[in-house]
């Protein structure tokens, strides 16, 4: 997948329909909340309406009662006057005693609203503009300053009302009057006039009426008393005000059952109010009804509070929940988006890296099922990722037989039960807890085979459990070819050079041994030189091949338990010819017993021989080479000390390098290949030790190597092997 494809891929992923869904799911709770709010308001309004209807009905019922009571009260008082009318009708003449008797019969205490009652006899001169309208008889005058003989006609309005009563034959009411009682308390009242006609005369026309008029019965009402005992409204939950005329003005107010005047207060807003107008006794009346707070409490409207408070709280809680949820949600979404994006980038990057690698990179889960299969793997194995990912196990590419052989090997080495399949493949990596690098036969899809070098690494989770395996491999066919070629070349060199060398060495040996007859002295010394150089050439070839093998990792080590002291003594014995050759003496210092190491005897011999020959070579003739073994805390040190010229400081860094010699101009030292120390270093390091030296210019050098100590001899079987190598030693 190219770069362009990748960006396209990312864009595609980002442009899915996801945002629309997110938008919808983000709006949905708010929509639900709004619906809840609307529903709640609806319920509130419905309940309120229902309550309101109920209250209105109640209000209507209450005021209807009051209206009826008021009207009844007026009628009741009216009947008093009708009684007097009847009295006058049956008596052609009325005198004071009849008046008093009638009044006594009539219990006027039953009518507290009537604060004055009297009779005005008609002056009989109806045409005079100002006839006297004097009170003839009077009853109750205690409260107001009125009495018999008073001319009511002096008041224009009263005169008009009386005239109107006379002319119409009907009761007339005066305008509102305010009297003051003895305590200066206002008494709101008005006059009531009932015309009385002579029953013998006709009263059809106004003129006839005027002629027939006997007089007027009048009364004065005290509205406060008239209405105060009205018991129709005991709960006093409705206030009412009665006005004199059709208009409601303070001047016209006749009665109110409360302190303030509500009808005229523009700021007074009762829940319910009604204005009732009616006409009686020839005059308009207005009643203003209004509900008060007591009325509100009659009907239990607490349900509204429950709805509004409870609903409000519910809505608040719901919106708080939505806010918090949507905040959390959006936070989670953002986080998820960021993680996804990061992951996508990482994945893309990983994929790009994986795909661009020339290695076959295959990742598998714990169960061996392939999870990742890169381009390199596709190329190498000719399967497509689609064919194997999630479907096949790592073992698909392996040769069963090879796997089985490896398993058997592994079982032999570790002494564990043989495993099968995938477990067998990863057993070594698992036990190593690190990469298991080996060559394996890979089987391609088409059945062809190749040699692959695989590095199989266990993948660890945070809790240190294995989560899977990573196999990184490459085609080692070419590498194997080159290696084979190199091996062939090396063995060719080893054979092709050694064969003529063997002939030369043999020939010279035979000459030197006198098998071809006695040689002249000069010839004999020349043959000696040739022989020495043959030996040297032979050693050089050996060393080159050793270096080659060590570097190629083909150098085999046979580890066994060795008594280092014994080995050192034997080495000195075997290499004694060096001391003879260079005229020096090998002197073994005290050797501690039981110094055990796990090592390769032949290789150690090779190293010690190298150190001894070097020491001998560089020692002055007749000098001593001291050899020793030290047992240290965790290691054993073998040292070889000479009294030669020492190692120049300038050579310090190169001494263990290949073909290194301090001074090649010194003929005495020319006999080495310059590979000895470098081979020794490689061998000692492969054996888990270290090699070094310390030197003093002019005072000699000491070379030493340290090897890790082991506990005693490890197994008797290995000791037998040790003895079994005798054959070889004989050949040395």
């Amino acid at each position, binding site marked *: 997948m190219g770069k362009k494809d990748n960006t396209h891929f990312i864009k595609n992923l980002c442009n899915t329909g996801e945002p629309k869904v997110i938008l919808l799911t983000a709006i949905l709770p708010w929509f639900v909340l709004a619906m809840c709010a609307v529903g709640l308001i609806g319920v509130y309004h419905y309940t309120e309406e229902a309550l309101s209807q109920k209250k209105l009905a109640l209000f209507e019922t209450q005021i209807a009662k009051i209206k009826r009571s008021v009207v009844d009260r007026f009628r009741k008082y009216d009947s008093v006057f009708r009684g007097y009318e009847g009295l006058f009708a049956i008596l052609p003449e009325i005198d004071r005693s009849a008046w008093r008797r009638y009044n006594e019969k009539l219990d006027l205490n039953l009518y507290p609203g009537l604060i004055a009652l009297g009779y005005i006899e008609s002056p009989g001169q109806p045409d005079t503009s100002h006839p006297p309208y004097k009170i003839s008889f009077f009853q109750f005058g205690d409260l107001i300053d009125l009495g018999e003989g008073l001319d009511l006609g002096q008041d224009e309005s009263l005169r008009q009302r009386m005239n109107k009563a006379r002319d119409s034959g009907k009761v007339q009411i005066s305008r509102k009057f305010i009297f003051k009682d003895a305590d200066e308390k206002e008494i709101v009242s008005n006059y009531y006039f009932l015309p009385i006609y002579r029953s013998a005369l006709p009263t059809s026309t106004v003129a006839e009426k005027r002629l027939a008029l006997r007089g007027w019965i009048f009364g004065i009402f005290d509205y406060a008393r008239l209405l105060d005992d009205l018991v129709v409204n005991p709960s006093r939950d409705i206030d009412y005000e009665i006005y004199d005329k059709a208009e409601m003005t303070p001047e016209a107010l006749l009665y109110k059952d409360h302190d303030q005047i509500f009808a005229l207060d523009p700021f007074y807003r009762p829940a319910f109010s009604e204005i009732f107008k009616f006409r009686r006794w020839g005059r308009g009346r207005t009643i203003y009804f209004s509900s008060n707070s007591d009325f509100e409490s009659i009907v239990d409207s607490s349900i509204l509070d429950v709805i509004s408070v409870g609903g409000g709280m519910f809505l608040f809680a719901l919106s708080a929940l939505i806010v918090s949820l949507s905040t959390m949600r959006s936070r989670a979404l953002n986080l998820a988006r960021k993680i996804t994006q990061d992951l996508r980038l990482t994945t893309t990057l990983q994929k790009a890296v994986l795909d661009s690698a020339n290695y076959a990179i295959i990742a598998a889960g714990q169960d061996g099922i392939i999870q990742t299969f890169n381009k390199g793997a596709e190329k190498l194995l000719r399967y497509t990722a689609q064919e194997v990912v999630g479907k096949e196990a790592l073992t698909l590419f392996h040769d069963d037989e090879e796997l089985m052989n490896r398993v058997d090997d592994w079982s032999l080495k570790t002494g564990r039960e043989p495993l099968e399949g995938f477990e067998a493949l990863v057993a070594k990596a698992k036990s190593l807890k690190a990469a298991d690098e080996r060559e394996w036969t890979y089987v391609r899809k088409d059945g062809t085979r190749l040699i692959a070098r695989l590095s199989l690494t266990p993948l660890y989770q945070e809790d240190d459990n294995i989560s899977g395996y990573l196999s990184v491999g490459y085609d080692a066919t070419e590498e194997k070819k080159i290696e084979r070629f190199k091996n062939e070349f090396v*063995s060719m060199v*080893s*054979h092709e050079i*050694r*064969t*003529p*060398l*063997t*002939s*030369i*060495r*043999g*020939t010279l*040996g*035979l000459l*030197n*041994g006198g*098998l*071809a007859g006695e040689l002249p002295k000069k010839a004999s010394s020349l043959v000696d030189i040739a022989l020495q150089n*043959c030996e040297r050439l*032979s050693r050089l070839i*050996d060393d080159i*091949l050793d270096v080659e*093998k060590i570097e190629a990792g*083909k*150098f*085999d080590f*046979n580890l066994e338990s060795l008594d280092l002291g014994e080995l050192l003594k034997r080495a000195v014995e075997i290499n004694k010819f060096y001391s003879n050759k260079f005229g020096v003496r090998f002197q073994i210092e005290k050797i501690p017993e039981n110094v055990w190491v796990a090592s*390769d005897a*032949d290789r150690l011999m090779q190293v010690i021989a190298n150190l001894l020959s070097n020491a001998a070579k560089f020692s002055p003739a007749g000098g001593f080479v001291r050899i020793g073994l030290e047992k240290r805390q965790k290691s054993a040190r073998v040292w070889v000390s000479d009294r030669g010229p020492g190692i120049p400081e300038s050579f310090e860094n190169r001494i263990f390098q290949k073909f290194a010699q301090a001074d090649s101009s010194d003929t005495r030292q020319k006999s080495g290949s310059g590979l000895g120390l470098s081979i020794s270093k490689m061998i000692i390091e492969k054996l888990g030790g270290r090699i070094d030296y310390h030197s003093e210019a002019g005072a000699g050098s000491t070379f030493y190597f340290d090897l890790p100590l082991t506990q005693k001899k490890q197994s008797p079987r290995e000791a037998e092997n040790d003895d*079994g190598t005798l*054959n*070889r030693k*004989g*050949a*040395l």
Partner: protein
Amino acid sequence: MNRTELHRILCVEDDPDIQVVAGIALEAGGFEVGFCSSGAEALTEAPVFRPDMILLDVMMPGMDGVTTFLEFRKMDEFKNVPIVFMTAKAQSNELARYEEVGAAGIVMKPFDPMKLTSLIQTFWERRGL
């Protein structure tokens, strides 16, 4: 092992110069030496020459030393004839392989012809141990 004396040695070696050197050295030691240049030749010549011991080069064109060795071991009359390998300095695992198949000894090339006789004598005396 009827004969206790080492008398006849068959030297199988593809290089004629080495044949000469080995021949002179061994004959100087008093042995009767027969020569073959390849494994195949050795397998046909040996029954005729009837050697007491065979000196066998490891690296030869055609049939190599070990194969020749194993072929000899298949032949009744050579089942118990000591066979010594001649080889260049080899790795310990290779040497172990020669011992494993039952070599009587190993002569490292290049060898000192003056010590060859005594070396061969040592192997002869230690044979079958």
